[in-house]
């Protein structure tokens, strides 16, 4: 390699080919550019002309320069230029080279820097021709010397582990050391460990040793604990230094279930302090959702701590069967539960319907006998998802018939009627004491005190399954606590009351411990070792060295004691572990970590990680050459006049990129303004052009009639597309039915239903006079049924004689269109409508009927052309004209009904009103 300042060139002789550039210049210059093809009708005049000189246009000098530069860049790129080549000193030597890496979580923060440094060293070693081997202390494997390039190609696979090398690891590493002389590089993570010393001695005896270590400090995060409702967090740093501020963050899921940053907080290390503490006051709900705490900007498992159940305050709903508000407080069935649970849990009060949506962890039913079916269903659903239902017996439960003959789904056992009383004033026998807990009971290990007595209880019916369900019993073998599982949850019944009425259990310390064992109250002291002994914990997710959570499906379960006490290693990875009824977290940083910076013996040379990086420039030069050649292509195209196509393509691309500024909104607005500035009637587009035109003409005719005869002066009618147009602007829609119109989409139906509910009216017209008759339906009738199936239409009846439609403007008894006399259906009158004495008609619906359905083909009767003449002939002679007149009157009445509602019905009250006003 030749060095030019900071630039090294691996194959300098290749640069000689730069000498060929001037020759290339001459050659390229002589080559004429490609001919341009042009259309030119005058070509006939050119035929026969000869070129004077054969030398053509020269390639422009700048294009030549561009090409020269491209060629030069290729040559230079191939000659292997390197910026900042590694000086030779560090990797000099000829003995094999052993690279030892601590590869612990503490190296993860600057793992990249380590890898870069190592890569540089290996490159150098490769140039020197030394063989190299790698030994990771966290996961030692037999050492095998290979060429440096082989190792370099494997470097990306070398990852740190989320633990520190322990004693066993170091022993294995010593055993793995090769025979003979070798030099060693030790990539240290900077943490002091006693176990380093023996290895250090061996390495020094075999050859030279260089230690690479990052001088920067290292931040670590201790486990989160709960203190008086506050989250207490302890942050550590490896080296004392000036005041420093780090950001502590909590990640978890937002209420929608998406990963989110839940809080951020700045923590400041005092000057020269190694520890910073902070207390966070977070809402319990938010706290329960946090799934990891981390120091932001530090990629290391040491900067992450996972909370487990000990941080969670469980939500417990307490529900009593009898309202204790008027009783004495000590007799309140929930009093002792409240006292026992309040310090460690969040208590919800309220009715069952109120607390179930909050999804509490536990629901306590104290002396509640029966639940309503809907409540029972909801509780069962909640149980299936992992709820814990804790029931206490009591006089009500004993008196009720619940779970008497058949086992109630919300009771673990069947009960005998009445319960029993022992040791009372009126009974023989002593009050019963508790039997010691069986070893398979969740209460196993708790001390049973003799002073706890039970003198009343409910008795379980003997059942084949009873023995499995008893988890605590009295000295005479009767069950005291039974449980069964339902789905993922369980139902627990305590056979005595929750207050001291039947037993003094609730006022003993044992009661609190039993509640803890049932995971009803989970306090801070859960990880007591005797609780963990013999249990198996399945890892849920484990941390890698960079602090990322990974699934742990393939890892075996861990014994409880090991989980609590053993040092982290390949067999016990940091992460979350699932026990029988709760989760435990093992974090990298324990409550009291011993973080000390490593002090190396003075004879060992310690080097930093930061050094200028060797940069091969060859690739960049080749890339530049390609860019230049691309520019050359464009320039050549431009020169030969062919860039036009490219320009067109660019224009197309630009056009495609432009947002298409639809004018949908403006048309929507125009429609809204046009439809609302005057009264506008509309007809529904059916897709049948002829029918749509007829309907449009009919609306025009109806509008004209109204304009001439009444004070309703409508503007020109509109056609409405149900899928696209807004309906709310129109007081009245005419919907002619044709047998082959499309069923509207769901969105259109939603719009239609909103329209009908908010006071709009649709006139459905099957236009076939319903001539099928005799129970059969016409094609249009069936279509109407299909169309209306999804509409929110009230019960209907044929227009009664006293319906307001018969008198809103004209007095009508028939409603003919092109056909006469078929029934027209409107919203049915309420069943309690009665004819009052002295009133001509009943007081019917208060609202406008949302639909009018008929088949008289009103469109044909109303339709007029532009000049106002009817389009469709009706009947014969004067009779037909009379029919058209009545049809028009029906239209007027209909619109009046739409616009004025039951105003005409109220007119009957006028005499009474006038009478009352004294007129």
């Amino acid at each position, binding site marked *: 390699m030749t060095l030019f300042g900071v630039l090294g060139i691996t194959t300098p002789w290749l640069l000689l080919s730069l000498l060929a550039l001037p020759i290339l210049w001459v050659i390229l210059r002589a080559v*004429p*550019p*490609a*001919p*341009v*093809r*042009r*259309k*030119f*009708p*005058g*070509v*006939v*005049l*050119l*035929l026969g*002309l000869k*070129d*004077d*000189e*054969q*030398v*053509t*246009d020269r390639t422009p000098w700048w294009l030549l320069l561009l090409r020269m530069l491209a060629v030069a860049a290729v040559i230079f790129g191939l000659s292997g230029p390197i910026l900042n080549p590694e000086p030779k000193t560090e990797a000099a030597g000829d003995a094999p080279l052993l690279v030892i890496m601590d590869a612990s979580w503490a190296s993860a923060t600057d793992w990249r820097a380590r890898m870069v440094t190592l890569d540089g060293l290996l490159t150098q070693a490769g140039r020197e021709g030394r063989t190299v081997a790698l030994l990771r202390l966290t996961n030692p494997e037999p050492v095998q010397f290979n060429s440096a390039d082989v190792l370099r190609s494997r470097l990306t696979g070398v990852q740190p582990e989320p633990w520190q090398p322990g004693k066993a690891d170091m022993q294995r590493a010593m055993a793995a050391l090769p025979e003979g002389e070798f030099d060693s590089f030790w990539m240290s993570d900077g943490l002091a460990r006693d176990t380093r010393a023996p290895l250090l001695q061996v390495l020094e005896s075999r050859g030279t040793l260089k230690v690479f270590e990052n001088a920067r400090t290292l931040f670590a995060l201790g486990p989160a604990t709960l203190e008086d409702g506050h989250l207490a967090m302890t942050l550590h740093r490896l080296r004392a230094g000036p005041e420093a501020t780090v950001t502590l963050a909590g990640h978890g899921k937002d209420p929608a279930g998406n990963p989110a940053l839940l809080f951020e907080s700045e923590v400041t290390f005092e000057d020269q302090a190694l520890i910073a503490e902070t207390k966070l006051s977070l809402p319990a709900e938010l706290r329960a959702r946090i799934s990891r705490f981390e120091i932001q900007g530090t990629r290391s498992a040491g900067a992450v701590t996972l909370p487990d159940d000990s941080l969670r305050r469980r939500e417990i709903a307490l529900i009593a069967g009898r309202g204790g508000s008027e009783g004495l407080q000590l007799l309140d069935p929930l009093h002792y539960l409240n006292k026992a649970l309040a310090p460690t849990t969040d208590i919800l009060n309220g009715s069952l319907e109120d607390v179930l949506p909050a999804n509490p962890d536990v629901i306590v039913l104290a002396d509640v006998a029966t639940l309503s079916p809907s409540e029972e269903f909801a509780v069962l659903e909640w149980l299936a998802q992992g709820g814990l239902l804790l029931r206490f017996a009591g006089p009500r439960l004993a008196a009720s018939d619940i779970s008497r003959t058949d086992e109630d789904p919300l009771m673990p056992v069947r009960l005998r009627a009445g319960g029993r009383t022992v040791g009372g004033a009126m009974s023989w026998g002593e009050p019963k004491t508790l039997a010691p807990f069986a070893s398979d009971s969740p209460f196993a290990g708790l001390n049973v005190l003799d002073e706890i007595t039970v003198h009343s209880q409910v008795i379980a019916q003997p059942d084949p399954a009873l023995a499995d369900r008893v988890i605590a019993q009295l000295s005479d073998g009767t069950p005291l606590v039974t449980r069964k599982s339902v789905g993922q949850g369980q139902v627990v019944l305590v056979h005595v009351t929750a207050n001291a009425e039947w037993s003094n259990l609730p006022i003993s310390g044992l009661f609190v411990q039993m509640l803890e064992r049932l995971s009803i109250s989970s306090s801070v002291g859960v990880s007591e070792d005797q609780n963990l002994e013999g249990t198996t914990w399945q890892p849920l997710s484990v941390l890698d060295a960079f602090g990322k959570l990974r699934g742990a499906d393939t890892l075996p379960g861990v014994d409880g004691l090991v989980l609590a006490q053993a040092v982290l290693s390949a067999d016990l990875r940091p992460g979350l572990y699932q026990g029988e009824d709760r989760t435990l977290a093992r974090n990298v940083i324990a409550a009291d970590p011993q973080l000390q910076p490593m002090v190396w013996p003075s004879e060992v040379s310690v080097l930093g990680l930061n050094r200028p990086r060797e940069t091969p420039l060859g690739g960049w030069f080749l890339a530049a050459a390609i860019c230049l050649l691309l520019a050359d292509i464009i320039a050549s195209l431009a020169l030969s006049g062919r860039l036009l196509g490219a320009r067109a393509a660019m224009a197309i691309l630009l056009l495609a990129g432009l947002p298409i500024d639809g004018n949908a909104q403006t048309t929507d607005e125009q429609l809204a303004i046009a439809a609302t500035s005057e009264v506008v009637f509309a007809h529904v587009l059916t897709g049948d052009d002829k029918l749509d035109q007829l309907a449009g003409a009919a609306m025009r005719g109806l509008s004209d009639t109204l304009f001439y005869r009444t004070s309703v002066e409508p503007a020109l009618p509109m056609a409405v597309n149900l899928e696209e147009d807004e309906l709310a602007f129109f007081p009245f829609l005419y919907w002619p039915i044709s047998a082959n119109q499309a069923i509207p989409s769901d969105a259109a139906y939603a719009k239609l239903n909103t329209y009908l509910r908010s006071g709009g009216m649709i006139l459905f017209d099957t236009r076939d006079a319903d001539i099928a008759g005799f129970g059969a339906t016409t094609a249009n009738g069936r279509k109407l049924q299909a169309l209306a199936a999804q509409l929110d239409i009230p019960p209907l009846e044929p227009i009664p004689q006293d319906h307001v439609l018969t008198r809103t403007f004209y007095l009508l008894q028939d409603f003919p269109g092109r056909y006469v006399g078929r029934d027209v259906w409107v919203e049915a009158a309420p069943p309690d409508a009665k004819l009052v004495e002295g009133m001509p008609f009943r007081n019917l619906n208060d609202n406008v009927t949302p639909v009018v359905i008929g088949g008289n083909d009103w469109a044909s009767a109303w339709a007029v052309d532009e000049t106002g003449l009817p389009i469709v002939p009706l009947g014969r002679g004067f009779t037909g004209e009379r029919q058209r007149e009545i049809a028009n009157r029906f239209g007027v009445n209909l619109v009046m009904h739409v616009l004025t509602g039951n105003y005409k019905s109220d007119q009957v009250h006028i005499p009474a009103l006038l009478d009352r006003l004294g007129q």
Partner: protein
Amino acid sequence: MSQNIAQQSGSGLRSRAQMEASHFPALLARAETLAGTVLLGEHGRRRAGAGDDFWQYRPLQPGDNYRHIDWRRSAKGDDQFISEREWQVAQSVQLWVDPGASMRFSSSRDLPTKADRARLIALAIAVLLIRGGERVGLTGWDLPPRRGEAQMLRLAEMFGRDDDSDYAEPEARGMLPHAKALFVSDFLSDIAPIEAALAKAADRNVRGTLVQVLDPAEEAFPFQGRTIFESVGKSVAYETLKAGDLRDRYLSRLAERKDRLETLCRQTGWQFYCHHTNQSAQSALLWLYRALDGGHP
């Protein structure tokens, strides 16, 4: 389908031609020849001849037929008069617009093709003539001269037809003797058929005008560098290594061609006009208006 498109483009052409023509008063084409082959029309030629309208009385001359004596006039005096009618003719004008591919060329996106301009001018003059009561048609047998608005439609439709050949030869068949003719083309093709057509026209005593429509690029030859020139139909190609050097020689050949056409016109009593597509069509129409009116612009 293609006919529909042709009709549409034809009607567009017609409306634009009508717009151009609306700038002019009705044109009365003046007939130079008096041959009897000329069809009678309602337009007086301001001289005595066959016709319906009264022109003047003149004294009876020897050789006049007695049947022509106007007795009512003659009874007022001693002399006998003959009432002469005004001679009415309708002029037949026959058009030929080059349908060849060479006309479908424009050097710039902003310019119309030569064919477009040529058809516009031809149809505009046809509109003027038809308004003036003349008969307008095409040379050849496809569309003989007729009168009336419908003829405009037919003309526009005929103008919508393109020819695939690169350079079309002038159609000199079917020319009515003593009619007028208008040839619109770029006249870049072989000169021999043009000469033959004009000779044939002169033989039949047809007078007319040649309008040469050229693209500005054909006039300026603004090309440089190695170029392959192709005709629009790609039947003729010519490659040069240095187009810039050809310019002077090309221009001299073009000038020679124009000179040749002018000479030819002078010899046959025709008129020649060169129009460029970057000029206004109205200037060409104005010139044609005067040329067909009989005067020399």
